């Protein structure tokens, strides 16, 4: 089999995205290599969430180019993009209230071998096993976030798009999420993480993209993070 060039697991060129009449993204360019962990930083409304949604084809209209492992997806319907091996965890977590915890876990389609089994997931998230017959939205915020993460690890997809997974969670759970992200990276997952600030992923991320008004304003590699703190704080308005 022809292995795609690893530096191009995800490659976005000149991406424009629209919701009805509003033009949100104005030419995003970014690449994520296999096994990399990259964050998308920026203020609210800068276009970070829209970038993830555009990758999944969940915006009204998009143009430019998005390739997954070298395959052009700009004209593909969402379900076919997902089948290329992408796990998507939306900002609002998207736990289905009409489904039990286990049904939520089993919902995403397994697209290839190599995903985690239900038993492995329950070992990793024992809370979910205890509550597997409960309806999804009966869980606490932290448990819901765990569930939203766990269910995309079953599919065999290697590219994870995670949107603000620490938002509104207690510090102890945020730490647990941090450890989880670390484990996933070690397992070889490629991760695109949308975050409000860079502290959560500072130790884990290989690179940080800063998005401002729908374009990439800056890219900061891990080893320049310490020297770029002031600049980043300015971008993020902290």
């Amino acid at each position, binding site marked *: 089999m022809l292995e795609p060039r690893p530096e191009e697991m995800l490659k976005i060129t000149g991406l424009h995205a629209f919701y009805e009449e509003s033009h949100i993204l104005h030419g995003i360019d970014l690449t994520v290599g296999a096994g990399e962990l990259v964050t998308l930083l920026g203020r609210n409304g800068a276009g970070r969430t829209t970038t993830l949604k555009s990758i999944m084809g969940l915006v009204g209209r998009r143009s430019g180019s998005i390739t997954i492992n070298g395959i052009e997806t700009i004209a593909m319907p969402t379900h076919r993009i997902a089948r290329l091996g992408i796990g998507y965890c939306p900002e609002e977590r998207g736990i289905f209230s009409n489904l039990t915890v286990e049904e939520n876990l089993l919902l*995403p389609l397994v697209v290839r071998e190599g995903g985690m089994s239900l038993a492995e997931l329950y070992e990793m998230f024992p809370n979910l096993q205890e509550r597997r017959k409960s309806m999804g939205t009966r869980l606490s915020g932290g448990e819901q976030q765990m569930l939203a993460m766990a269910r995309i690890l079953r599919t065999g997809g290697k590219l994870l798009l995670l949107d603000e997974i620490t938002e509104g969670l207690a510090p102890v759970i945020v730490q647990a999420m941090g450890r989880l992200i670390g484990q996933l990276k070690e397992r070889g997952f490629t991760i695109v993480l949308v975050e409000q600030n860079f502290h959560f992923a500072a130790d884990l991320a290989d690179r940080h993209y800063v998005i401002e008004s729908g374009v990439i304003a800056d890219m900061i590699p891990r080893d320049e993070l310490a020297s770029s703190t002031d600049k980043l704080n300015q971008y993020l308005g902290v």
Partner: protein
Amino acid sequence: MELSFHTVMSQVMLGLNNGVFYAILSLGLAVIFGLLNIVNFVHGALYMLGAYVALLGYTMLGPLLGKPDFHLNYWAALVVAPLVVGLLGIGIERTMLRRLRKFDHLYGLLLTFGLALIIQGVFTNYFNVSGDAYDAKPEVLEGAVNLGFMLFPKYRLWVIVISLVVCFSTWFVIERTKLGSYLRAGTENPELVKAFGINVPLMITLTYGYGAALAAFAGVLAAPIYSVSPVMGSEMIITVFAVVVIGGMGSIMGAIITGLLLGMVEGFTKVVYAPASSTVIFLIMVLVLLIKPTGLFGKES
């Protein structure tokens, strides 16, 4: 007034017989509304079409094929009519409803209402409005069964049993299986279900087709009981919409239970005060709307 057990029970059983039709039809409406967010006004016409597939299959298909002795029998009609009408439903979804998906669902209602008028109009033009009898009731279902408290027509008992089987199987598939979990999830957040690799547009098409097939199935069941007429659907659908409003849109079990109960209430009213039997459902609808506007089984949204 003296109410004998026998009179009450026989009317309640006949009411249950109407109730299963309400149940199947409102179930189809609930399934379609859940996933497509469309109040499917053409449902009554699809029910009528189901009955006509059975009737015409029996009377006209043979001569049309040049084999005058060929009659599509009842059992075959129970399979063929849902298939034909289900495919028609798929066609309607693919060519029309799909284009309306990004607009307010009022447009879906208007479109299906228009379709219902067209279909009914065409059939009124060609067929007898006062109805044609369907004579292909199978011999095994002739006669009556002794239920202990009354003699009940065998055919009506069959209708009740098979309808309950169909309703509860549908409920089971939706609420208890993997396929059903896709459907429930699609009802709640179709975009995210797509992002999980599931072909939601296909699921929507098939769901609409299934709803249409259910309506046609009910139409075939109805053919030997009521006369087959172009207006049978529009008469039925008004009551069914009241049932749906009372039960609350979107709940599968709610649609089934409400349909059955209201059929029986209607039957019971026939004994107590017959003139009210055709309006009692609407009275209940008014009361329910006053007390619980989302319907008995509806969830606050």
